[in-house]
């Protein structure tokens, strides 16, 4: 949290953050989420894609106590308050991992690979973690 806000008046671009890494094993999911939170201050058209191991970021009942790492999964539930409401999960990635929508800790839109491809293609900026 900072006291300063920065706006780029007038410019609204479509930003997509593509999450492809599982949490805890590497830092990408956590530091990726930090970028997403900061991006909210710029009032852009932000969407999040969860594909491949990225869908594991949204798995319910994460408990990191024995790991000695911070459990940052509750932060995904804060995204709504940051007006980041476009969360897309690729169905194929989810099913490949034996997960269903009920396993996820936030409301998402489950889309096919083809739909995800179209969503990605229509972005101005795609940043991948």
């Amino acid at each position, binding site marked *: *949290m*900072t*006291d300063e*806000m920065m706006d780029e008046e007038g410019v609204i671009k479509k930003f997509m953050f593509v999450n492809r890494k599982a949490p805890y094993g590497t830092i990408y999911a956590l530091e990726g989420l930090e970028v997403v*939170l900061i991006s*909210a*201050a710029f009032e852009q058209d932000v969407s999040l894609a969860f594909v491949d191991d990225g869908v594991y970021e949204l798995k319910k009942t994460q408990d990191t106590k024995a790991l000695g790492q911070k459990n940052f999964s*509750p932060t995904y539930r*804060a995204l709504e*308050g940051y007006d980041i409401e476009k969360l897309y999960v690729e169905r194929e990635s989810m099913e490949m991992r034996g997960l269903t929508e009920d396993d996820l800790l936030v409301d998402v839109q489950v889309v096919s690979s083809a739909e995800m491809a179209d969503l990605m293609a229509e972005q101005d900026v795609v940043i991948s973690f």
Partner: protein
Amino acid sequence: MPMVEVAGKSFEVDEEGYLTNLADWNQDIAGYLAQEEKVEMTDSHWEVVNFLREYYEEYQIAPAVRVLTKAISKKLGADKGNNKYLYELFPYGPAKQACKIAGLPKPTGCI
């Protein structure tokens, strides 16, 4: 790192006076941190500090100011969920001062 003793309990703060170990926090320590910031704690201050702690507890982050005002507005009313009100309570900014008093992690200055 400097050690401070408040009400018989000693705890560590960093160079800028932020609580080092978030689990140490209690009301007495909050009172001390507020004093260091020259903030006189009233019920209105406590309301914001407690709100921040609840927010952190639930989401594991300190909210951006914009998000904080919106969330406070929703919970405590629009007369409190605005920058003017929060800056009156915490003249050097709710992010810096209220978070510090609430014992939340030091903002990394990310923007």
